[in-house]
């Protein structure tokens, strides 16, 4: 298609104007996106959409009352994109009559629009407006919101008033106006709702260190020292639990292979010689001393069964077997992402197995890691997410209810923590939902009579899934399989009598 035509080329867009209140020179940095601009000499708030810059409000402030730590007009790189600081406001809440104030910086990029930095007592958050609605649950205490698979707990609600402004804003800012702000936290992120009148704006902030901001904006000196602990400041402890989970993630693929192996072994029938792999068993019932196994139209008969599938399935397959109570499984989401190129990375380059600190997910494994090619341009990442917070049944429902688009967003949103340009690199995402992916040990799992009885069963049906160990890991799967086979062999040996 032709793109020629007398389109004007990009013109310099920074407008220089004069304040109608005091005549001082004003610069509009956010091009024509600014809705209000503040004169820093006479503190007039002006209508930036009006060519005459009508004065909307005047407020009183001392000279240099609250100088921004990031001077307006300074540029810095946030998540790979250059932003210019264009606006600054101080907001104040009162708790038990005591005022607490924080600062918000308005950042602008002409292609990507506005984002915000907030600072309170040396704690910084990088904040942007949410583009889809979180789900609010007020029936629990504390109330929660969930957004892209992550649950945020209510932290506080307060009326926040604007007490000082400078520069440009993409909305009609006024000193003295207030809105109801609620914070929901899941470190290092915080989701905030701001209610003005009937309208609610949702935003998400992510904790960022002052040092990173100083580096990004090339600021002199040191960032202000942090005082206290902030609501969504990450705790250094939680990274360790993630590390434990990822150990499972790495073994998961191997585990499924093992399950399939044991599953086929379970169907060792003696009617006909041969190996009957890849048959879907739908019913197991007792017949005489042994069992009848129905798979499709075929009935197999066998003396022993080693049931190596997840043990909870037994009550659906084995006639007369009661449902289990002590076994709990987490649903997992796994996804294969096809990458046309490698993204930029924050911190360090991707390795085989990559876990993000403070992420609710288990990160990803590079599926071309063992490729011997010296130059790999395209690759596939396998992304793992154990939905392990909260009730498994609810998480299964969530996994089922949300569509590909939702999970795609959630996955990319998570990867953006480290790879800001991931959306540019991904050409395809295949998402798998696994309802009962992994057993998870809950309190009492070790001493559960149900688990112990199933693990040491001496009858002709033996159980061999790794969930009997409470943990779905490769070593346990192998141990349970070998152990079940030993028990079958010793029963066969006893029946045949002593050998000579």
């Amino acid at each position, binding site marked *: *298609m032709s793109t020629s035509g007398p389109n004007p080329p990009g013109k310099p867009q920074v407008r220089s104007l004069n304040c109608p209140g005091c005549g001082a020179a004003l610069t509009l940095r956010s091009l*024509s996106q600014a809705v209000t601009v503040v004169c820093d000499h006479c503190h007039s708030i002006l209508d930036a959409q009006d060519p005459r810059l009508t004065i909307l409000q005047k407020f009183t402030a001392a000279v240099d009352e609250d100088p921004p730590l990031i001077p307006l007009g300074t540029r810095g790189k946030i998540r790979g994109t250059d932003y210019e600081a264009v606006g600054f406001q101080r907001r104040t809440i009162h708790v038990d009559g005591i005022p607490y104030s924080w600062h918000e910086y308005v950042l602008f990029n002409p292609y990507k629009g506005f984002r915000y930095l907030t600072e309170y007592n040396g704690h910084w958050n990088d904040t942007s407006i949410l583009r*889809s609605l979180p789900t609010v649950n007020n029936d629990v205490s504390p109330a929660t919101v969930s957004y892209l698979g992550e649950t945020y707990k209510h932290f506080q609600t307060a009326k926040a008033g604007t007490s000082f402004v400078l520069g440009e804003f993409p909305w009609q800012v006024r000193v003295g106006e207030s809105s109801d702000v609620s914070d929901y936290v899941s470190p290092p992120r915080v989701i905030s709702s701001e209610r003005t009148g009937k309208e609610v704006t949702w935003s998400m902030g992510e904790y960022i260190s002052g040092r990173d901001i100083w580096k990004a904006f090339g600021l002199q000196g040191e960032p202000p020292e942090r005082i206290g602990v902030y609501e969504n400041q990450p705790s250094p402890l939680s990274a360790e639990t993630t590390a434990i989970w990822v150990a499972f993630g790495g073994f998961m693929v191997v585990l499924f292979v093992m399950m399939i192996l044991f599953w086929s072994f379970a169907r060792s029938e003696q009617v006909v010689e041969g190996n009957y792999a890849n048959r879907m068993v739908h019913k197991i019932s007792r017949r005489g001393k042994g069992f009848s196994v129905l798979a499709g139209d075929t009935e197999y008969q066998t003396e022993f069964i080693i049931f190596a599938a997840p043990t909870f399935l037994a009550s659906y397959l084995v006639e007369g077997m009661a449902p289990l109570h002590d076994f709990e499984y987490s649903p997992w989401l796994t996804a294969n992402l096809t990458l046309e190129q490698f993204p930029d990375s924050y911190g360090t380059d991707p390795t085989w197995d990559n876990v993000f600190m403070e992420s609710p997910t288990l990160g990803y494994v590079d599926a071309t890691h063992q490729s011997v090619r010296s130059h790999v341009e395209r690759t596939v990442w396998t992304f793992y997410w154990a939905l392990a917070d909260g009730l498994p049944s609810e998480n299964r429902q969530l996994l089922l209810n949300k569509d590909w688009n939702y999970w795609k967003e959630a996955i990319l949103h998570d990867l953006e923590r480290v790879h800001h340009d991931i959306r540019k690199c991904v050409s395809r995402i295949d998402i798998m939902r696994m309802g009962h992916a992994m057993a998870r040990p809950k309190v009492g799992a070790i001493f559960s009579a149900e688990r112990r009885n199933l693990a040491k069963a001496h009858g002709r049906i033996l159980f061999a899934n790794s969930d009997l160990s409470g943990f779905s890991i490769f070593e346990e799967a192998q141990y349970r399989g070998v152990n079940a086979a030993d028990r079958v062999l010793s029963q066969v040996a006893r029946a045949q009598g002593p050998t000579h």
Partner: protein
Amino acid sequence: MTQPTANCPNCGAKITFRWSSSVQTVCEYCKSILVRTDIDLKKVGQVADLPPNSSPVQIGTEGVYNRQAFVAVGRIIYEYDQGNWNEWHLVMNNCSAWLSDAQDEYVVTFAAQGRKLPSECKVGQRYTWDSDDYTVTTVTKAHYSGVEGELPFQYWDKDDVVFVDLMATSGKFATIDYSDENPALYLGKAVEFDELNFKNLRNFEGWS
């Protein structure tokens, strides 16, 4: 792709249609609003200067949405009490879509006919279309403030219009346009700048 051409009935300049189904276009030279009839182009109005607007998209900007290439061929600018926003008319694989750019927040929508629509909406009300639950997030009273390029319908000389925006938890997005007697529904989703793989964007001096 053949591009039908004609001459502007007002100034004689060559008019090229990028999209064969366009109904209206604006002469790039004399800013006459031209509507296609069976035989020729008819001048129906004149575009005043467009309001200052810094959308990075321009006529001829290309991109990709849902693996489908698109090109921006026209736009409508609306004004409201917080500034203005653009509805870019996209042509993709011979169908029409809209890219809304409000202060660099991007939403792609498609006209959705045949759904039941309320005669008016209030913030907080919920509606379900195509099994997505939407909540009304804003009701905006806007007025038309200019057109550029090709549009799939006649659109000019409009006055005040009410737009209702709705969001779903899935990232889906809906707009009801009450400018006509019969409200029109557009369904789509919010998109990130990077996802659209834009080409031929406007340049802003000092920014890359």
